[in-house]
């Protein structure tokens, strides 16, 4: 697909997404929009997808493993919640979250990537648990296990985003910018280098690609996406405590990206959609839904390690051949 077509497709998707929750009955279209809960879930999906895009950059493009994306989300969320309480405007909090996560990513990745392939996974594992312990135990700053309550929704150009749909549009706009930025990176020579170092780091290195530096950049950028997603998560939920930023949720981020299709552009969106909407779909099975999910993931891995996007691509290819 040419660049222009990609951009056009992106804009159409964006417009459709913007319309999903909106009540169009006033415009004469018999479409009532979503309930508040539906809008909330849709917003949560976007926030999750932003973090998952970061994981995809690290896992799917740079071929590393990160077990700390939820911790980066936590960094962004706490920074935004706490700084926000002290009157720092949301814009600063949001950019600050990204920058802090980026710097922490560099600090973690630099020593880990000196060594061998899986050491980044080990270091992020340790970091993930350590960050969670700090969130829990430094109650003076983070509110400890009782969390931080009543986090305000941002005010943009004097416009309050209390309304669920308005906040959704705000998050959608940010998600669109971040998606475009990632797309741009992946289209640039950087993206080519990322793909190369995932497919064959040895050959890439011999062609002058500084594998260590590019891996580090991918990790730090991916982590920054986590931080920025966290910065949106805090005002969305209006309450944060340490539990969504523990090791378990970090593992689920990896799971979600691989299930969606790691190394594909839309994989994180699909994976995040499954993770956020799955409990809704399988509500009828209540107690069994996690078991169903687990078995489905294992079967998917065995048959289609390319994830859901890979699965769809497989079938569309098949059909077009017939």
């Amino acid at each position, binding site marked *: 697909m040419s660049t222009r077509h990609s951009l056009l497709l992106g804009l159409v998707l964006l417009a459709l997404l913007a319309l999903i929750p909106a009540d169009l009955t006033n415009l004469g279209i018999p479409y009532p929009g979503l309930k508040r809960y539906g809008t909330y879930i849709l917003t949560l999906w976007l926030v999750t997808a932003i973090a998952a895009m970061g994981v995809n950059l690290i*896992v799917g493009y740079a071929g590393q*493993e990160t077990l700390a994306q939820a911790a980066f989300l936590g960094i962004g969320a706490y920074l935004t919640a706490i700084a926000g309480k002290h009157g720092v405007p949301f814009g600063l909090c949001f950019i600050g979250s990204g920058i802090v996560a980026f710097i922490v990513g560099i600090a973690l990745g630099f*020593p*880990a990537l*000196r*060594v*061998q392939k*899986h*050491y980044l996974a*080990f*270091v992020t*594992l*340790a*970091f993930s*648990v*350590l960050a969670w*312990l700090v969130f*829990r*135990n430094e109650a003076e700053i983070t509110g400890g296990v009782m969390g931080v309550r009543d986090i305000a929704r941002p005010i943009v150009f004097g416009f309050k985003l209390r309304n669920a749909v308005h906040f959704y549009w705000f998050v959608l706009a940010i998600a669109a910018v971040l998606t475009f930025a990632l797309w741009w990176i992946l289209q640039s020579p950087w993206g080519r280098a990322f793909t190369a170092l995932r497919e064959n780091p*040895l050959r890439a290195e011999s062609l002058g690609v500084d594998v260590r530096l590019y891996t580090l950049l991918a990790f730090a950028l991916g982590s920054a996406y986590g931080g920025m997603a966290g910065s949106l998560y805090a005002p969305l939920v209006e309450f944060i405590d340490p539990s969504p930023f523990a*090791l*378990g949720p970090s*593992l689920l981020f*990896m*799971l979600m990206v*691989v*299930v969606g299709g*790691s190394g594909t552009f839309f994989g994180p969106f699909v994976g995040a959609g499954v993770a956020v909407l799955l409990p809704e779909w399988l509500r009828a099975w209540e*107690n*069994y839904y*996690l*078991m169903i*999910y*687990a*078995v489905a*993931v*294992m079967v998917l*891995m*065995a*048959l289609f*390690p390319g994830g859901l996007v890979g699965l769809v691509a497989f079938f569309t290819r098949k059909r077009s051949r017939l």
Partner: protein
Amino acid sequence: MTDLLQLLIAGLATGAIYALAAIGFTLLWQTSQTINFAQGEFVMLPAFFALIAMNWFHIPLPIALVLAVLASMLLLGAVFRYAVVGPLLGRGVLPLVISTLALSVLMKESVKEFVSAQAESFPTLVPDLVIHFAGLSVSIAQLGMLVISLAAIGLLQWFLGGTRTGRQMQATAQNPTVARILGVPVERMILYTFLINAALAAIASILISPIYLAKFSNGETLGLIAFVAAIVGGFNQVRGAIAGGLLVGVLDNLAAAYVSTAYRQAIPLILLVLIILFRPQGLLGRKEERAV
């Protein structure tokens, strides 16, 4: 001083359990590049096999324990090898990580849903007597845990170093390609490591459950600690995993007593980061070449 000794004994006893789990971790990693994220659940589950045998089928304890070990070797060894790992071999580490992660969820949820959502007491073979001497109080059960797990480790070491099959397994672990050229039945050796891993996990489960109770969520912490122990000791050496397990067990107790109970989990992890910075091959691990 007595406090310190008391802490050391308690730490070594739990450390021995971590070592059992960590050994399995390194064995699987070496022979099949499997990072088993369900390792903690592998230690959680066998106790429930025994409980099911006892409570549902009224089988006496010793037989139930043997059955639990056998069931683990079948399900967590052979079935795991062929149904979960088999289809994913040679596709890199990531699909296996994801699949074992899903497996851990499945195991936890199944036990919670079909057996028990609460902690269950678990009978012990060794009487839960406490001996006091010189201000120390040590329970026989705890000593038994230490002795049995060290015996299991000793037996494994003897098997790996002293028997033909054991040496073949080591060859497979170090370099499957070369081992295959040398005529080692690599496939069978890989299966053996899975069976040994399952057996060690079952032993750990039976030893730890009388003291820590059997619960579906027990694997979460255990798996993490076994993972940390394996890395600290050296991911490519069995004796590294043993040292790592014991060290992390002791360190956890000392940290809780002398540093901070709130940050006790942090100490082994900080050790982990330091190891990666200064001795990436682990305490007892082999140094690996910059790969070609």
